[in-house]
């Protein structure tokens, strides 16, 4: 007899992880089910941008207000995941300055601190931006590491009693007398839950259909490019009506340019990759922000899917904002026991979780209060770990904050991944805390192989160490990982990326 939970959450992205944490902190027994690894979907395939809300100030006041509120909260509770870069919205001659005036006014109305600065001052702050600028506005945008943010939520949820079932797909929702009472996994197990929360991003619609509920979702593909250098220290935006490829975000030592925005068929969402055409568009536009991007080495290109919800025909779907969509399927569709939380943004995921958990509590007749706006996440609690701070641990402290106290550097201090300075101790920690199947999973929890060499140099070492931890064949781990990296390199395969491709191929296929 399997355990019965108060809540079962489907989907291991930021929305599911944040909801799991909120439920656990409120004392609910809860389970998260994810078909792949944590952060496998859109949560691991985005800009890593902590919006100030400025981008939405003109078109979506409510969304902008949500963003700036959550932006301030995440800077406190997830300080170790956020880099307080600040952002610039730059105007080029073809943009004019009319939009800038409206933009600043709308930002102020939404409570966002937007300040026009002199173009000369902007170029002093960021020498790489387009020298043709005629105006610039400073806003409190920031960079956020989405992998780290999701992991921190997962860790905290588990430390408050939540269960996590990864690499397990939900085959169907179990219904009794019209009520959703749990889920059946692809392995055939039935797990009972008093409330089931769908938080599976674009995959939510398919799961809901299983329960006879129709959610009109529109998959919107966004492609991005990672450059091998940090060309600017601020988030750089174009000060115009939001368009393609007009945001450049610094992240660690790289820069991420995006995004495109295209409707795609839902069947394609399981295999997302950037196309050469999208890459050309991104580069053409990106060069307007920062001209040197034309010559900056590209590491890879990737794509994610935004889970946009089309206007709710029933009109009673608790569609509280144009971004966040919380659906109570009991009132909306006559299917009790089922809730959907979707739409929204990485920046507003905590709020989405709060809204979903409030509804869960209402369904269960509980009154526990939400604490997630003030309680710091693991790694961001501000207790600086006491180390002599040798260089091989510095990167780990940066990634994991005080979580490094759970890593045994005395018996695994040697560096395995040179680019990201990942030690054997950190690998062992990731295997222990998150459970990984392969190097791609390990990458999400440690940044292994995400650096400038994309694993070309270290993959065999990494595979050997991981294979030792997992008791599997290292050769399979190597090929599996390189295939994953290859997918991101092929759309940008020219210049220095082609040079690296030849190297990766020869060294790892033993073709020299």
């Amino acid at each position: 007899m399997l355990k019965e939970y108060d809540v079962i959450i489907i989907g291991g992205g930021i929305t599911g992880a944040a909801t799991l944490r909120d439920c656990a902190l409120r004392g609910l027994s809860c389970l998260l089910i994810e078909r792949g690894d944590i952060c496998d979907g859109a949560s691991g395939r985005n800009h890593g941008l902590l919006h100030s809300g400025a981008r939405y100030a003109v078109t979506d006041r409510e969304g902008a207000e949500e963003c700036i509120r959550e932006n301030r909260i995440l800077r406190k509770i997830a300080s170790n995941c956020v880099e307080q870069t600040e952002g610039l919205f730059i105007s080029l001659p073809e943009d004019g300055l009319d939009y800038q005036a409206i933009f600043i006014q709308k930002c102020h109305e939404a409570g966002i601190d937007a300040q026009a600065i002199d173009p000369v001052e902007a170029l002093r702050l960021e020498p790489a931006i387009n020298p043709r600028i005629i105006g610039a506005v400073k806003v409190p945008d920031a960079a956020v590491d989405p992998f780290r943010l999701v992991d921190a939520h997962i860790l905290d949820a588990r430390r408050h009693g939540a269960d996590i079932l990864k690499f397990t797909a939900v085959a169907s929702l179990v219904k009794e007398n019209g009520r959703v009472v749990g889920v059946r996994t692809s392995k055939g197990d039935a797990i009972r839950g008093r409330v089931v929360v769908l938080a599976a991003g674009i995959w939510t619609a398919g799961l809901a259909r299983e329960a006879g509920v129709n959610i009109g979702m529109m998959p919107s593909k966004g492609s991005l490019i990672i450059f091998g250098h940090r060309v600017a220290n601020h988030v750089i935006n174009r000060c115009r009506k939001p368009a393609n490829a007009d945001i450049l975000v610094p992240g660690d030592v790289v820069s991420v340019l995006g995004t495109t925005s295209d409707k795609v068929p839902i069947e394609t969402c399981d295999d997302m990759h950037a196309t050469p055409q999208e890459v050309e568009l991104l580069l053409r536009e990106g060069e307007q922000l920062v001209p040197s991007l034309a010559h900056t080495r590209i590491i890879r290109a990737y794509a994610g899917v935004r889970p946009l919800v089309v206007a709710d025909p029933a009109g009673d779907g608790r569609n509280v904002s144009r971004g966040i969509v919380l659906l109570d399927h009991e009132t909306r569709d006559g299917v009790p026991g089922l809730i959907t939380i979707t739409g929204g943004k990485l920046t507003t995921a905590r709020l989405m979780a709060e809204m979903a958990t409030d509804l869960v509590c209402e369904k269960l007749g509980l009154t526990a209060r939400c604490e997630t706006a003030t309680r710091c996440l693991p790694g961001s609690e501000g207790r600086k770990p006491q180390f002599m701070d040798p260089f091989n641990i510095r990167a780990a402290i940066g990634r994991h904050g005080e979580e490094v106290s759970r890593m045994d550097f005395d018996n695994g201090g040697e560096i395995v991944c040179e680019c990201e300075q990942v030690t054997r101790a950190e690998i062992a920690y990731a295997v222990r805390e998150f459970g990984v199947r392969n190097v791609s999973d390990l990458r999400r929890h440690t940044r292994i192989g995400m650096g400038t060499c994309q694993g070309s140099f270290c993959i065999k070492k990494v595979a050997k160490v991981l294979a030792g931890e997992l008791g599997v064949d290292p050769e399979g781990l190597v090929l599996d990982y390189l295939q994953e990296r290859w997918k991101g390199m092929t759309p940008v395969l020219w210049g220095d990326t082609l040079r690296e491709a030849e190297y990766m191929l020869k060294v790892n296929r033993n073709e020299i």
Partner: protein
Amino acid sequence: MKFDVVIIGGGWAGRTAAGRLAGAGLRVCIVSEGLSLAVVHDKAPYSCLADLQNKGVTVLRGDRAVEGIIAGDRVSAVLTRNLGKEMPLEADTFILATGKFFSRGLLSDMTHIWEPVFGADVAYDADRTKWADPEFSFHQPFMDFGVRTDKAGHVLVSGRPVMNLYAAGEILAAGSKEFDTDSFIEEYEHRIG
């Protein structure tokens, strides 16, 4: 400076040719910018640069050929970064052995692939989306790209063979003809009697 043979590229292909040609008594110069992939990974056989020097090869370490001067159907000289225009490298025969992309024997941008020293004809697919196979472990088309030669191994520039320019090693396109060291030495020995 005048040599019998100038070899551009100090990877395994260039070093191997240099060692054999010098051993046969030819005056050889090799321009070696840095370590190549194969040399780093200890592909045998190759000679280390000191061995080549002991055999009488002039080794230009850390130098790079920047321009080949073609007059009619022959290369008259090669200019290097360090020696410049004042000291062109002259020779009867030139061998291009600069490797593929990693070693910058071939350069590329979003639409083109070119050979930077002589502007030699490069065989590649005009459609960039066909440069790579999506499966990492499959044969990768870009590894077949490289300079074209005629049947005798003369490198083609603007469609015409350059009669004293050959290519060796990775820079060759699939189906092109590699510089034939054996025949070259045989012909040389025959000529000097």
